[in-house]
Each structure stands twice: as structure tokens, then as C-alpha cells.
């Protein structure tokens, strides 16, 4: 007797969450099977769709770039409708916390390195810092948070030719923490507005930054402006400084990623999706061309989960949905075919940011997103794939990671749900 559902989604990232929400919309009983804490906490929290395609970019209209993508790109399978379906599910899940849905155009967001990233949806707190809006910018770094070097980021922005002046300063946070304190500790101090010499954390930080302000009309901090009370923190700082305050997305531990993870998992709960997290799917049992059971390694003990339909959304090489050694690249749960050059020196290019073959490694989906074998036939009638495990997209160069996950998740989840409830 296995734990049984209609649709089993394997994974814990944005593709898996979207697939589960999409399947739940069909009325199917859905379970999300996640391994560790979601990798969303490592992500910037930005949701891009398509920024660069066919040698063009940054694209102002991501949909206009779809046709220029190479053959075999997952966007060709799900189409513009798939992308829009993914964004709809995302917007329903996060509500007002994200902006950008008012237009089809990309926004240009400042990254923590001072690069400019075309992105389709972005957290509300990021909005005042868009490069596509005017207003001179002061970027504020904090002495203890070394991941964000504000002067370097500002110089980088200026070098990119932004139509406003950008200046960066580094200040001391009003409260001293141990040298390796995390961004979450800073956020907590602002949340609680802890007492410090000369006032409270928020007021003293505002006073410090006010001294640096030289006519700029907006001020950006690394994304650490509060966790539970973030809106209140930003409002108070804006109020005290007299100009809008925004957050610059950061790398791990990413507060914006953590917040997105919470929002998506709340949406799963709301939609009645069941969640089993903490253990990896490692194996399966199949019968007559159908996956019958997925085997989860529950502290080295195999535990069966069965479902009518299965969606594989375990991520790419970084998320461990794909595995590689010196000989080959594999998909470790179902052993799906992952095409790759035989000689491993052909997997990558000499340039760090070159057109690497490995970036496009992944399973090869058919027109229903079912992974196919060497002969182009689906491995299993009831197994679909979504997100980073799907090959054919170079998401880092295209700026399409979230979009590919949302679109393939939405379509794979809907198809799985429809099959299961048929």
C-alpha cells in the first residue's frame, strides 16, 4: 500500500510549485514531493521571461523574441499561451507582492553587481529602483554585508549608460553584529526596530544615510529591509529620507527568494496541494509503459508514493535534477535520455560566459512535455517534465529561467491534472 494521489510533482522550486498549482486547478488531488528546503531561497526573487534571443537584447517585449529562439527550446513547445498561463498562475499565487503585470514589456532591474537585468515580474520593494524609470540614485552598502559593494555597483550602472546618475556609499549599520552575521540578522533588527545609541535602528540608519544624500531622488539598499514587517520598514525609511527607498536583489541567502518561497508554499496550501518534504525521490516502478510508483529515500529506507500522473521538476545541473560525471550526463530518478556530446571537452566553451553546450543539457520533451528516449518516443505515457530538468534553453544567457519554469510547469501540470481527472 503506497501513499496515493492523482498527480505527483517531484521538486520544490518554481517549476514544481507552478506544476502543482496548475494540476490542482483541474480538480486533481496533487502531492508535491520536495527534497530539501526549496532552492528558491538561493534565487534573486526576480521573475524573468526572456531578455535576450537570437543575438538581440535586452528585449523590451519578451514575446517578440520567442520566434528567434533556437529549435528545441521549451518555449516552442508551450508557446506564448503557455508563458501567459505560467504568469497568470504566478500572479494569482503572489498577489500584490509582485509588480510588472500591468504591461507585456520587460522592466530593467538593477542587480547587486550593478548590471541591468530585463525582467518580467519583480517584488514590490524593487520597483522604485527600476533602471527604466528616471531619478538619480544613491546605492547604500553596509560594512558588514560584503556581498553588495555599493560604489562598485553604482560605477557599473553608470558604465552601462543609465540615463541618470548613480552613486554608491558604504555605511556602518547602526548595530554591530559578529563579523559574519547574516542578512537575516540585519532584517530582524529593522523588523523589531531594536534600540541603539542615539535612537533605534531605523531612525539612526535613516540619519546616517541622510548625511550621505546629495540630491538623489531614490535610495537603494541590499535586500535586507525587514522580513515580517518589510513594508513598514521601507515606509519609515522613505518617510525619514524624503525619497523612495528600494531593495536591490541579492544572492544567497536571499531574503526576496525566501519570501517568494513562503508565498508559493502558502499558495500550495491554499490550493489543497499536499506536501511531503525532506527526502529525495530516487527510483520508480513502472508497468506497461507507465510510472506506477515513485520511490523516496526516507533516511535510506525506500518509501513508495503512487499516482496516476507524474511531473518531474527536479531542476537542472545546479538543482541536482541532472547529474554528471566525467563520462556522461544523466537524469537520476527515471534515467531519462539526456543528449550530450561524447567528448566532455565539447560540453563547455573556453570563455566563462560562452555559449556552453552544458547550459542546454536536459531531457528532450515531446509536444506534451513527456521526456523522450533516443528514438523520440516518450519514456512513459504518464511522465512529464518541467523547469530546469528540461533541455534546450540556455536560461542564464537568455534571462529566461523563471519563465521557462513557469510556462513548462503550467502546461505539464495542467496536462497531468486533466489526464488524472479524465
Amino acid at each position: 500500500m503506497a501513499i496515493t494521489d492523482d498527480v505527483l510533482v517531484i521538486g520544490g522550486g518554481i517549476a514544481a510549485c507552478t506544476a502543482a498549482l496548475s494540476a490542482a486547478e483541474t480538480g486533481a488531488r496533487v502531492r508535491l514531493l520536495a527534497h530539501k528546503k526549496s532552492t528558491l531561497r538561493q534565487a534573486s526573487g526576480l521573475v524573468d521571461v526572456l531578455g535576450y534571443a537570437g543575438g538581440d537584447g535586452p528585449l523590451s517585449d519578451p514575446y517578440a523574441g520567442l520566434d528567434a529562439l533556437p529549435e528545441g527550446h521549451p518555449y516552442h513547445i508551450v508557446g506564448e499561451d503557455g508563458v501567459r498561463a505560467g504568469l497568470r498562475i504566478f500572479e494569482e499565487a503572489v498577489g500584490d507582492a509582485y509588480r510588472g503585470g500591468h504591461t507585456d514589456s520587460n522592466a530593467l532591474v538593477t542587480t547587486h553587481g550593478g548590471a541591468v537585468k530585463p525582467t518580467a515580474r519583480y517584488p514590490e520593494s524593487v520597483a522604485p529602483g527600476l533602471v527604466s524609470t528616471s531619478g538619480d540614485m544613491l546605492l547604500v552598502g553596509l560594512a558588514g554585508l560584503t556581498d553588495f559593494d555599493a560604489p562598485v555597483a553604482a560605477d557599473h550602472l553608470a558604465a552601462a549608460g543609465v540615463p541618470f546618475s548613480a552613486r554608491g556609499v558604504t555605511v556602518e549599520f547602526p548595530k554591530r553584529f559578529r563579523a559574519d552575521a547574516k542578512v537575516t540578522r540585519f532584517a530582524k533588527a529593522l523588523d523589531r526596530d531594536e534600540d541603539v545609541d542615539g535612537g533605534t535602528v531605523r531612525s539612526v540608519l535613516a540619519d546616517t544615510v541622510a548625511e550621505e544624500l546629495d540630491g538623489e531622488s531614490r535610495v537603494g539598499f541590499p535586500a535586507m529591509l525587514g522580513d515580517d514587517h518589510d513594508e513598514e520598514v521601507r515606509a519609515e525609511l522613505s518617510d525619514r529620507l524624503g525619497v523612495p527607498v528600494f531593495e536591490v536583489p541579492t544572492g544567497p541567502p536571499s531574503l526576496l527568494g525566501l519570501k517568494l518561497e513562503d508565498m508559493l508554499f502558502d499558495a500550495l496550501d491554499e490550493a489543497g496541494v499536499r506536501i511531503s518534504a525532506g527526502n529525495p525521490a530516487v527510483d520508480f516502478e513502472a508497468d506497461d509503459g507507465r510510472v506506477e510508483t515513485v520511490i523516496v529515500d526516507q533516511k535510506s529506507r525506500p518509501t513508495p508514493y503512487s499516482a496516476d500522473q507524474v511531473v518531474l521538476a527536479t531542476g537542472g545541473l545546479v538543482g541536482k535534477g541532472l547529474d554528471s560525471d566525467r563520462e556522461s550526463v544523466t537524469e537520476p530518478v527515471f534515467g531519462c535520455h539526456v543528449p550530450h556530446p561524447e567528448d566532455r571537452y565539447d560540453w563547455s566553451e573556453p570563455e566563462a560566459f560562452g555559449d556552453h553546450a552544458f547550459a542546454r543539457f536536459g531531457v528532450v520533451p515531446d509536444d506534451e512535455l513527456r521526456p523522450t528516449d533516443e528514438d523520440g518516443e516518450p519514456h512513459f505515457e504518464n511522465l512529464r517534465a518541467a523547469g530546469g530538468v528540461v533541455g534546450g534553453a540556455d536560461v542564464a544567457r537568455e534571462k529566461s529561467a523563471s519563465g521557462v519554469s513557469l510556462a513548462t510547469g503550467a502546461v505539464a501540470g495542467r496536462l497531468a491534472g486533466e489526464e488524472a481527472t479524465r
Partner: protein
Amino acid sequence: MSDAESPGNPTLTPDAQTDDFEAVEVFPDSTDMDLRPGADNCYKCTACDVSCPVAEVDDEFPGPKFQGPEQWRLKRKEDEAVDDSIMSCSNCMRCDDACPSGVPLSQMHNTARGEYVDEEMDKLSREYIRNRILANYGTLAQLGSMFPRLANAVMGNSVVQRINEKVLGITAERDFPEFATQTFREWWNERGGPQVRSEEKRVAYFHGCYSNYNTPEVGKAMVRLFESFGYEVVVPKQRCSGTPMFANGMLDDAKRAAGINVENFAGLIPEGYDIIASCTSCSMSLRQEYPELFDIDGIEDLSAHTYEALEYLRIHEDLESAVREASVEDQSFAYHAPCHGRNQGLDRQAVELFRQLDGVEIEDVGDSCSGISGTYGWKEEKYDKSMQIGADMFDHMEHAQGNVGMTECPTCSMQMEHGTGYDIKHPLQLLEEALV
């Protein structure tokens, strides 16, 4: 392949290797733990530090990344002692669940803590004596339950509590858990052992200390429930699972107890028995910490055959249909998932199951740690931090509809009761009410 694994380094002369360079032992004896691959897997994303409940309230605590891979690397130099901050780790093991890269953080912490206690801690210090007493709760409870009423009166006495705090460093803020007037094992013997016999469906119950001495109703619920599904239940002799010993670095005590438990349980596996625990820290210990820390014949087999009670029924019976057809009198619960249950992937099963039980409202009070972490919250110097960690949970419990708490973990239930005054039930008790 890391550089350290390369056989021979041409730039180093043999002399230099013996004088200045200490080679890392790459292939140690098979009985030794090799933590190197785990340390090498850390890419310093700090996901563990962000998920650490102690680091969140204790600005002095360097966090799991330091306690694990970084300290392991520092320790390659022989004159480096383990940092005393290791004693502030509460062994909640949430870092294991957070690590995206498979670093065995809790195993590294347990090992470092064991070494610190062995080599750095004064065995006559108040802290050592206090920790040894707390770690060996089973022994204390065995004495207490010989004269439960007297023990309860003594331990509940405020003068005794203040003496415990002043002399031993056990907080006076908490009420000592009451000993049951009849232990689970006394009840078990009185009823004459198993009431159901079966060749096919057999389980051996690991009740642990708390359901034996303090909450025998949980153990009784387990027995009646499994018997109602046709299982033969046996209750082998057993010692503490070792959880409080690991958390206090008393690895010798833990190994002795583990030896007895492995001997008494592993031999039943070939006869068709699986091992069931009702406490999620006991099942965690048998499943993960035993094989990680000790090399005892049969320990892997025991680990692979151990289950938490609800988990076992969900896998082996159609528990969901049974619950859907049952009903109980109207009641509402505020459920807290213990960290050790979370790490086994069990954090959502009680809510998922009881949402389908007619008459029951159940709400998850969030994914924070309760803050007590076994013996951590009993230490006088940790009490305030323990309550700060628990603040989120108390708050959510008070806002939840139910005014009865629910959890699988005995010490989480102490903390829930201490922070809110609610009665706390174990899921097995509700399941017994619904199905037996």
C-alpha cells in the same frame, strides 16, 4: 577529485611532508568516520545559518556552517581545540534539512561536541554534571517512577526547583514533568503483553523514556491502534534512544544505550518485525544518528526498519480511508511539527490526515522551532533563548482556533504547554479515539 586526493604532490619533498606539512588522512580505517567529503561539499551558501533557530536569537553563536565544515577544517591542525560554542548548538538538526549540498551537518556537530566534552570539559564542573544528569533522563525517570507521587511532590516543590537552578543550573522556570503512577511497561505487563498474534503483521515498539515514565497514554494508544489493525505488538527491553546524550556530547553513554537497543531490536527483524517509535526524536536517532555515529553489528538494519508510528500506518494500511469513514466529537487542535519529525519528512502528515477526520479542526502553527530542543531549554543559561525561539510558535498557537496543542515530540509538548498553558495531545491519541 579534490587536490588532496591526488596521490603525491611533486612540489613537496618527503622531508617537507614530515616536518611542515601534515597530510590529510584520505582513506582512514573503515571503522572511522570520514567527514571530508561532507566538508568539501559545503559551498558556503549559508542556507544552514539562515535556518538555525539558535543563531537567530543568539548573536554570539557562530552557526552551523562554522560548527560543521569550517571547524572540521580548522581541526586538521592537531593543536586546535573544538570551540566551546559547540555547546550552544541545540541539535535541532534543521541545518541538515536546509543544506542543498548534502553536508552531514548534524553528524559533524555531534562528533565535534563529543570531542569537546571528552577533551575540553572539566568532568567535575557544574555544567558537566548538570548535562550528564539531563542527558540521562531515563535513569532519573526510572528512579522517580518508583515512587511517582513522592517524586512529583518533591520535583514540583519550588524550593527544590530553586536549588536545582542554583546548584545544578536547571531552570526553575519550568515545572518538572510529572511521573505517571503506572509506567507504560507496568501496564503492558499487567495486561499480559500482546493481545494479538500474527505471523505477517508484526511490530516492535520503541516507546522511549517519556511515554514509559510520563505519558503512558501515548504508548497505550499506539498498542491499541496497531492491534486494531491486526498487528502483533511486542515491547522489547530498551534504553534511551540517545537523543539527549548526543545533544550533550555524551557519546559514550549514547553508544552503550545504542548497543543494548540494537541487540534487543535488530534480532527481531529477520522474524518479520519492523520497529515503531512514537517519539520523532527516538525514530530520528535510530534511523539517522545511530548509523552515522556508531559502528555496531546490525545498526544499519535497525535504521532501515525503523518507522514513526503514523508514518508506518500511512505506508502499510489504507489509513486515509479509515480516517475518512470515522468521526470524533468536535475538537480543534494547534499542531506543531517537531524539528526532528520535519527532518524525517513527517512534518505535514498529521495535519494532512486529520483534516479528513470528521469533527476535527487542525491548524499548523508554522515552521518555527519550539525552542526547547530536548535538554537545551532546561538549562538555566539557555532558558531565555529557548523562550525567544518559541515566541513565534506561542503566538501562532494563541491565534489558532484550537486551544489544545498537538505534537509528536515530548519536549516540544512541554514547551507548548509551558508557553500557552494548553493541554497537548499526541496524534496517536486522536487516532485511537477515531479508530479504536
